[in-house]
């Protein structure tokens, strides 16, 4: 049996491991345009700052391919011939035949829609090549641990629209490193791009279209705390700014961001306005895509073509609210990879999205959420508590018809699995508040949350 997987991200690798666990002799090929090794995309920011090396963000040891008998194909896949069962490769390489195929090609950054978005010195923060570009602009190179091991000759054969291509570095051309970076887009990747610039000793600008940072997850009170933190660290947070164009100097290097509020100097711009499924290479292969570009799959992750499956960021899957769209999360990509692995083995298995939860770290503030928060449910009420003692935290419990349906917590650590259980058990607000510390996951010796006046 020949298994071919396009993508060695978490979805692709989890599937490959699931297959190998049961079938020691099947031929498994992993095609990756981006990197030799499976790495954690979530960890790019720490490589940038120097907190971790490339080796550190790889969950498997570097002999994993050899030990597990995976065939590594470093190339760009350019299409699938579903009739002949072949994956074609860029650069005139031999197409790869498959019996069962998994597409796990992830996301690509959404490009800036503004004039000047392709100036030198403008980039993203999603791929390894983006990381290398941003490091070059700000630090003038990698940390002492060096870059990832890579045989990148094939990247030259990649089409210009590949997200894994190398970018021109304006710092090199200008002869000095970036001093005034700007980040556009108030989401999680945006704040990470801001944070690493702070760690490099710079004062980045942060352009956000909305009224406050990250409105899909935070309310105005919560977000104000994060904004204060950012300002405290020297970030210029520009809320309610619509970017209109990016200006470049005579040499083609980016020089300013123009918004509806005015002109702001910038010598390096990170566009972080979201990601889209990385599926343009599938055009013409007859595999059905939805309006967003996500690969249409059924409950068991099968695509419109026989023996072809899709998992991870590139697949349009069913969310916890029943809608179908791509979901760009580490744990959903991992879970889908595991299900896809079973499917490649020939098992029938459905992908089931459990309750919503997530966590993040916004500057120095830890964030945990579970259940339905910021959904504007009928008749919902929010109970909010701000702790301002030795520990600073906020607790928001969303209640609908006297039942707790969601939690949004900043500053402390919580076990989301306990919070989800309470939601499923339909607990009342009073009950939850009385038991809240049972869900605490604070480090030892941290005084427990005491709710005054409750």
């Amino acid at each position, binding site marked *: 049996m020949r298994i071919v997987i396009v993508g060695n991200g*978490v979805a692709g690798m989890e599937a490959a*491991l699931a297959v*190998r*666990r049961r079938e020691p002799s099947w031929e498994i090929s992993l095609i990756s345009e981006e990197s030799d090794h499976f790495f*954690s995309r*979530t*960890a790019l*920011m*720490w490589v940038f*700052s*120097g*907190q*971790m*090396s490339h080796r*550190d*963000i*790889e*969950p*498997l*040891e570097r002999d*994993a391919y050899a*030990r*597990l008998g995976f065939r590594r194909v470093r190339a760009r896949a350019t299409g699938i011939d579903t009739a002949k069962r072949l994956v074609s490769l860029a650069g005139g390489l031999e197409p790869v035949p498959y019996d069962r195929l998994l597409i796990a090609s992830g996301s690509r950054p959404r490009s800036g829609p503004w004039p000047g978005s392709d100036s030198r010195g403008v980039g993203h923060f999603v791929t390894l090549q983006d990381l290398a570009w941003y490091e070059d602009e700000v*630090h003038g190179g990698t*940390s*002492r*641990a060096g870059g990832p091991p890579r045989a990148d000759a094939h990247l030259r054969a990649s089409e210009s629209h590949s997200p894994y291509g190398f970018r021109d570095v304006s710092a090199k051309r200008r002869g000095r490193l970036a001093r005034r970076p700007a980040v556009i887009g108030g989401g999680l990747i945006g704040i990470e791009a801001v*944070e*690493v610039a*702070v*760690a490099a000793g710079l004062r980045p600008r942060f352009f956000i279209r909305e009224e406050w940072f990250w409105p899909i997850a935070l309310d105005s009170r919560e977000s104000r705390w994060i904004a204060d933190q950012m300002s405290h660290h020297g970030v210029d947070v520009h809320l309610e700014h619509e970017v209109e164009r990016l200006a470049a100097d005579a040499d083609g290097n980016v020089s300013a961001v123009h918004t509806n509020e005015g002109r702001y100097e910038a010598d390096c711009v990170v566009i972080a306005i979201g990601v889209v499924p990385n599926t343009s290479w599938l055009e013409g292969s007859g595999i059905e895509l939805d309006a967003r570009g996500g690969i249409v799959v059924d409950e068991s992750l099968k695509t419109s073509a026989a023996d072809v499956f899709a998992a991870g960021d590139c697949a349009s899957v069913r969310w916890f609210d029943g809608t179908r769209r791509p979901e760009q999360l*580490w*744990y959903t990509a*991992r879970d889908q990879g595991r299900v896809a692995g079973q499917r490649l083995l020939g098992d029938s298995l459905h992908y089931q999205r459990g309750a919503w*939860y997530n*966590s*993040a*770290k916004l500057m*120095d503030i*830890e964030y*945990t959420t579970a259940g339905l928060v910021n959904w504007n449910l009928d008749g919902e009420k929010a109970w909010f508590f701000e702790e301002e003692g*030795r*520990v*600073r935290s906020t607790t928001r419990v969303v209640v609908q018809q006297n039942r707790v349906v969601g939690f949004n917590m900043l*500053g*402390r*650590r*919580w*076990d*989301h*699995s306990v919070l989800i259980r309470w939601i499923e058990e339909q607990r009342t607000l009073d009950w939850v508040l009385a038991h809240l510390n049972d869900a605490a*996951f*604070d*480090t*030892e*010796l*941290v*005084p427990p949350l005491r709710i005054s006046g409750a």
Partner: protein
Amino acid sequence: MDQQGQNGLLTTYREGWRNRSAFGLFISLLLVSFYVVLYWEHKVQEQFGVAPFTAFSEAVGLRNRWYLYGLLYSVAMVAGAIYYLRRHGNSRYNRYRITVNVAIQIALGFTLPFIMPLFGGKEFYFSYFWPLKYDYLYPQTLADLPLYLSLYTVVGSLLAAPVLAVIYGKRWYCSWVCGCGGLANTFGDPWRHLTSKSTKSWRFEQVSIHLVLLIAIATTFLIGLDWLIGSEHPTFHRIVAGNDWRDWSIKSFYGFAVGSILAGVIGTGLYPAFGPRVWCRNFCPMAAVLGWIQKVGRYRIKVKPGMCISCGNCSTYCEMGIDVRSYAQADQSFTRASCVGCGMCAHMCPRGVLKLENSWDRPEDKERQRLSVVDF
């Protein structure tokens, strides 16, 4: 403010002296030379006619070079503690742990042993136990000590230390009390990311640490036997204990190989090359014993299910080379024998996935002994 989690991003790999650069290795060379001169000062004296540490100790009024060493050790720990607390002191666990550890070193590792002889007593280190302080269970040592100290040593080594390890894990000793661990967590902290996480290094550790433990027990046993029958068997006595301190004997070999080379020269001298816990992880017989006890005790690291993003901060900053991530991403709470409970994995985790705790819950956590994620 009490916070949890690392504040601000670290720049570890962008700082030359903290990596295996020429500068880092130069620091290592200095440390190694320091230990070589300290331990074999008599050789230096034979060669060059000066005993630098002894001369200096006497000049500043310390009775011998070991007090000078104790003083330097304390100074290095205080300096390292300041470095550590500036980076990671925002969390209470880190703050309390390091403060207690440094205070114990200053009080029990330096001041008390210095003062006791002034009052006609013997110098005694309350913070060390057998088998780390390997001569504290030698019959001769016990006979020479005042009764209360002999009792302290015997009860401390054979009863109190193991019982505390059942209740709190080995961390009560390795991360709160022990001087070796204390130096590693303060002066050695800048190099904690250099400890190898490879499966090979784990295999090495499993063999080496138990080998040293075996040798420690055998040496103690032979020296006990020698105390009983040595006078009737001069050859046995000569082999086990030697007639003169300069003789090569099992006793002096253990002191040389384990006490000086492994604990000192390699254990501390190679911080900037292999991370700060080379001794604790690979050789310390006390750590081996407490590790076994930890496996059956209450201590564990609890993993929050489904929240790990496999970033690797926990594994990178684990000074014992434990691949914490492999457990976290498998939603597997765990107790590893080598874990010293320094708390840095939980501190570094940006998603709050890990929590150190003492609990009898879910003892099946403790049985898992997988070598790596890809071992099926």
